[in-house]
């Protein structure tokens, strides 16, 4: 009965309700895009770390888990590998180089990451082969680098790196391509540690080693259920190190939490605005309908029916708006260039949609209360 009444009313005032659904749709687009942007930016930031085949990261002490500030002696990595409870450990060294995209075009910044083949930190190839130690001039690139420069397995890529005061160009052969492994907003190129130390930008071009200073050590535990025990074991055995889980590590990246916080604030405010807009709209609807509601009650419509009609109307209109908004968001996202960091994960979209569907009734609460309180006597103009 409530559904009957709300459908009849929406249908006979379809232009008005359709336009309002579009407002809800726009709010949905805004919220979904903000969520997608948050997800996209976060992914760009953390993708490499998140996909590591490891549970813990070892840092130098007192650098607030900053991967670029942390410096670890190669010996510390060797020692780490012998600690009881560690299944495997891998050294990771970060740097930045430019990669030549096309002749006569500005080279693009990429993360240049030194790892040890077949150890935690070295990504698995989805095309070609995993990284090997020999020959030296080979690289595993991630999918975003491959997309950027249009490189395939077997192609040569040219990186540009500053050695002392000079810009040098080096050629590397792509032997494999990994999935998305962006790190710190940049596409990534993976090489062995010795290649890394040789080609990374540095002040003294002649000082490089096969056992260079690292940034962090990725640790894969034998038993991932008791990590705190392993954490303290590592800090006890190795001097001047701090250990953390992967999530804390990428959340500690400079700007990460500020960025996510800003986007969450925007999202929160959009939800709030949505609640107020929907609440306001339905309140005006109810205000216009007070005599009619009084009449319905006077001819014996139970209060429950009046409230249920009001609620179902809000739900129908919000649902319609959110569906249009979601479809519009995906249609729009499909037209975006791939380097725009807007990603949609099923869970974040689901959470957003459910929240959007809840703000309707939340915003409409007041109007439902108003409908509930109308006296049937108003039908008699008394």
């Amino acid at each position: 009965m409530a559904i009957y009444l709300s459908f009849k009313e929406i249908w006979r005032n379809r232009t008005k309700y359709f336009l309002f659904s579009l407002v809800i749709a726009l709010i949905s687009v805004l919220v979904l895009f903000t969520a997608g942007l948050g997800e996209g930016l976060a992914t760009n930031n953390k993708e490499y770390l998140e996909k590591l085949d490891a549970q813990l990261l070892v840092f130098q002490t007192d650098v607030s888990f900053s991967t670029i500030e942390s410096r670890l002696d190669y010996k510390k990595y060797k020692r780490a590998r012998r600690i009881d409870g560690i299944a495997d450990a891998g050294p990771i060294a970060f740097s930045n180089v430019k990669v030549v995209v096309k002749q006569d075009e500005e080279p693009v910044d990429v993360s240049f990451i030194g790892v040890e083949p077949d150890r935690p930190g070295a990504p698995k190839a989805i095309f070609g082969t995993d990284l090997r130690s020999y020959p030296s001039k080979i690289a595993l690139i991630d999918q975003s680098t491959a997309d950027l420069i249009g490189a395939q397995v077997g192609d040569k890529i040219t990186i540009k790196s500053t050695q002392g005061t000079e810009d040098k160009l080096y050629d590397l052969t792509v032997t494999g391509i990994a999935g998305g492994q962006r790190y710190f907003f940049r596409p990534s190129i993976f090489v062995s540690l010795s290649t890394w130390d040789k080609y990374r930008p540095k002040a003294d071009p002649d000082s490089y080693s096969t056992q260079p200073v690292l940034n962090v050590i990725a640790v894969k535990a034998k038993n991932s259920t008791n990590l705190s025990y392993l954490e303290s074991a590592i800090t006890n055995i190795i001097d001047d190190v701090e250990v953390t889980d992967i999530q804390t590590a990428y959340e500690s990246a400079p700007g990460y939490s500020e960025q996510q916080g800003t986007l969450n604030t925007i999202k929160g405010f959009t939800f709030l605005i949505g609640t107020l807009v929907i609440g306001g709209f339905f309140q005006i609807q109810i205000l216009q309908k007070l005599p009619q509601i009084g009449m319905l009650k006077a001819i014996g419509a139970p209060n429950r029916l009046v409230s249920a009609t009001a609620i179902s109307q809000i739900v129908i209109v919000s649902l319609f708006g959110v569906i249009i908004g979601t479809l519009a968001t995906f249609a729009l996202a499909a037209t975006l260039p791939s380097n725009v960091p807007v990603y949609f994960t099923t869970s974040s979209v689901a959470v957003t949609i459910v929240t959007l569907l809840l703000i309707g009734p939340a915003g409409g609460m007041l109007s439902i209360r108003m409908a509930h309180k109308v006296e049937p006597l108003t039908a008699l103009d008394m």
Partner: protein
Amino acid sequence: MDRYILNTIDLSKTYRSNELVVHAVSKVSLQVKPGEFIALVGPSGSGKTTMLAMLATLLESTSGHIYIDGEPFDDMNQKQRAKFRREKIGFTFQDNNLVPYLTAIENVELMLRLNKIYSTSEAKRAKDLLLRLGLDEQINSLPSQMSKGQQQRVAIARSLIHDPRVVLADEPTASLDTQRAKQVVQIFSDLIHEEKRAGIMVTHDLRMCKYVDKVIQMVDGSINRIIDEPADIDVLAGTSEFDKLSTPALL
């Protein structure tokens, strides 16, 4: 069974706001037999609407009793009152009678749906009733597409379709021209007589009284006079007696 459908005993309603006390209805006892159609007349403020509101359980009385078919209804909660209204009462208001987003037929069927007795045969009855009220063309019209008079006729159909015991109407013809008003009251009267319901209509227009069985005049919240032969009213027309019965409005 009681010989009256509707019976009130010393029914009173007193409004109190701050110092002000208004005896809107005081000690009214009136009886309506099955198939009896009564007109409630009287000057503005004499308590006619207040009377109807109490009979329809829209307003609680201050004292006195109301019996419908011999059953008192004193202690009903909000939910029971709503149920009572949709089952036992048919009400036509002065205006704002119809749900604006439902067509004429849907507005009448609304009463069936509220009572959960909607069926194709009942819907057929609703349609027949509208036809009888001369609304052939308006069956599927929205209220906004109908004249005031057509809307009132739809409201009258709605007040009768669910077979109520008591039919109440507060100035149902106020917005109609005399010719239209007479037709509507005539049909209304027929439908009350045929089905042996109890009907009470508040009106300011004494010319409507020749279709009722009894005219009750209220003054200052009490019954002032009962005219058992409303046909006589026409005889009174133009006299000062007539003017006293009625109000300045419309005449």
